[in-house]
């Protein structure tokens, strides 16, 4: 089974800006409701393959989009 990570945000404004940046970078991700154990800020988070974590962080930093954190997703 593939490992996933999640990026969480302070607000939806940040998440939706990030969505555009990650799409432009051709990174595969899915919008998910933010797992409560990770954050209680913005309601949506993006799930992506753990191997893309570095690219996600770099692209967001380069576009100056602040994010709360990138965390491993606990397996259900």
């Amino acid at each position, binding site marked *: 089974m593939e490992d996933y990570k999640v990026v969480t945000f302070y607000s939806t*404004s940040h998440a*939706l*800006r990030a969505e555009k940046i990650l799409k432009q970078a051709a990174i595969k991700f899915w919008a998910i409701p933010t797992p409560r154990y990770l954050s*209680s800020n913005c309601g949506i988070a993006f799930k992506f393959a753990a191997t893309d974590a570095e690219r996600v962080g770099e692209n967001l930093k380069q576009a100056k989009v602040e994010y709360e954190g990138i965390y491993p997703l606990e397996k259900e």
Partner: protein
Amino acid sequence: MIYFDNAATSYPKPPQMLKGMKFFIEKIGSNPGRSGHRLSLAGGRIINQTRENLAQLFNISDPLKIAFTHNATHALNFALSGILEPGDHVITSNIEHNSIARPLRYLTERGIEFSQVKVDEKTSQLNPEDIKKKFKKNTKMIALIHGSNVTGIIFPIREIGKIARENGVYFLVDASQTAGAYPIDVEEDKIDLLAFTGHKALLGPQGTGGLYVRPGISLKPIIFGGTGSHSEEDRQPLFMPDVLESGTANTVGLAGLKESVKFILKTGVEKIRNHEKKLTQRLIDGLKEIKEVILYGSDNLEEHLPVVSFNIKGFSPSEVGEILDKKYQIYVRVGLHCAPWAHQAIGTYPEGTVRFSLGYYNTAKEVDFALTAIEKIAGKS
């Protein structure tokens, strides 16, 4: 019908604006940034795109540093009350609209003081050197209108921004009349806080506007409430844009503004400016030919918005306005234009002036017709 009241609100609007608003109402209709379902996200994406379009227009590197407000007045109140503390001093001009004049006057009751730089009585232009003379130890900010809604004169904000930066004070620009009509570059112009409205030269719907806040500057909020973020806390989040965006947004308005700004980006501010400059030239040249007409402000087109104030000897501004409306179906604004300071500065207080304000959709033919009307009215006195 001739509409010459674009400085109050632009009319007509680009047809794309209505399409954007219709699409939101019919197909999305959600509250953006609150829930995580598809429609809520679709609403949020529209708002994000509006931010990105505006960021492109003003050369803002981070679109999230734009907070949406209902108009420029709210944005100016957020900026002034959000930055200034008792004991601070502000430099402004004596030609400001009430959207800066009234918050500043109110803030004097809270221990904040301001000094006015006087514009030239004839040209109504401001000399940046005069700003330098107003600095005090406790000066925190220069707060200025970019282009006057009364005389149409554009202040040299690039020079003034440089002075602000060199002296380590914030530069707040009220771009109500200039955003969309004149190039604005927050980096080159060294603007720290940019207040704009959506419904004037940005050609968007009423009830839209915003405030750009340079990264690194934090504002105290003056409105508190739900933001869809930090929901477990009863304290207002302090990051942009949420700090200033409490309560449900005017998403339908922003869906329209998104399209209007896109239209401006596609057309180009330079092209809009050139068209409006030509019309202004024609109008000013024509008015100068009528000997009963008194024109206010510089006639140098390079520092002129398509806003022209004048009076006709022997007539009050309101009489002229009434004749233009009833007899010629020319719609203009007369009186004080919410700017008593400006009329005191140019010597037209308390009667005010007749103001013609043109927009991208006006034509040379309309200007000629209006000039003929003024000539006829003046001839009768």
